[in-house]
């Protein structure tokens, strides 16, 4: 079976990157609504708990809104570090809820899935930053 961008069972969460970018650009309420529907869409294509991705995406966007700067201009370092925390937190919550009652231990989950997945998703997140840099983050502000 071939999975897009999959490396050793790890795939980047592109929807997570999308909703995090939205949360850095938009107000909290529309960002949460977008995250909810994006998460629901992700849930539709999986056989596991329907609503889990929607729940974690809404929570992470709410948390991400505290990282939003008033100028909405972000340096690469700030963006990377905050994304690292947010992606890690998201994967932690998602996998923790999913693995509840399962046989796979938390440590194994952390080492073999959460950390590699966080780093892999972050790489795509940074790529998105570099591609969208001019369009999204560094638009000149009109001074009257």
């Amino acid at each position, binding site marked *: 079976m071939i999975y897009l961008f999959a490396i050793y069972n*790890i795939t980047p969460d592109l929807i997570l990157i999308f909703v995090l970018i939205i949360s850095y650009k938009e107000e909290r*309420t529309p960002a949460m609504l977008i995250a909810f529907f994006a998460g629901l869409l992700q849930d539709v*294509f*999986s056989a596991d708990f329907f609503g*889990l991705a929607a729940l974690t995406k809404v929570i992470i966007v709410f948390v991400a*809104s505290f990282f939003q700067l008033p100028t909405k201009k972000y340096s690469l370092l700030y963006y990377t570090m905050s994304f690292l925390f947010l992606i890690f937190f998201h994967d932690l919550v998602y996998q923790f809820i999913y*693995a509840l009652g399962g046989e796979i231990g938390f440590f194994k989950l952390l080492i073999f899935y959460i950390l590699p997945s966080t780093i892999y998703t972050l790489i795509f997140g940074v790529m998105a930053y570099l591609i969208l840099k001019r369009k999204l983050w560094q638009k000149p502000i009109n001074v009257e």
Partner: protein
Amino acid sequence: MKTDRLFSYYKDYLVLLFLVIISMSLVLSNQNKQVTYFKLWLAGVMGSFQEGISAIGDYFYLAKKNEILLLQNTRLALENEAMRELRLENARLRELIGFREKSKLNLVAAKVIGKKKRGFINDIMLNVGTIDSVSKNMPIVVSDGLVGKLHQVGKNKSFAQLLLDQNFRVSIITQRSRVKGIIAWKGGSYCVMNEVPKRSDVKVGDLIVTSGFGEIFPEGLQVGTVESTSESPRELFMKIKIKHCF
């Protein structure tokens, strides 16, 4: 006026609370028929788009696919020849000892139209549903053996849980020595055979098949082969690595 101000001040928190309640209700009502129906309906709509997109992708792999199928066809033709001989021999033997012929499996062809692979969670979406006479918990097989089982079944789309999912379990036996165990996947390239007492007759290369003890999987579906075995003085059971067949 005061209420309006209070609402606008706490608007974000109220929206958060509302969305969290909806999401949690959905998570907690996963067994609910209406929720499953809604999800499968939505998956059906989205799946149709996905099917169209994957059809475009398939076009570019036709030559390669054709080559693979040609090789597979040759191999299967040879196997078929050998099996025909065995079937005739088997029929003669059955007649001799008076065994009733075992029921044959009814197979329904399905196409994978969606995949989800997130760490220890692995499932696929198939283009078959109740209109194709499939139902929940039916096993999914490929020519090499067992792949998984149907988890959620809609009218024309279904979700399947794969053998390589942390929550998937099947009762299995070694074909040669009939040693029983339970297969589970805990990450990585291999599965493990659990609940096998030490000093059981399990050897590297032994073929693993379904035991048929549960009500879900029929007996004799190929699952994999034994890759390695080991015993520890501290543990009651053997450690058996299984190389899955797909």
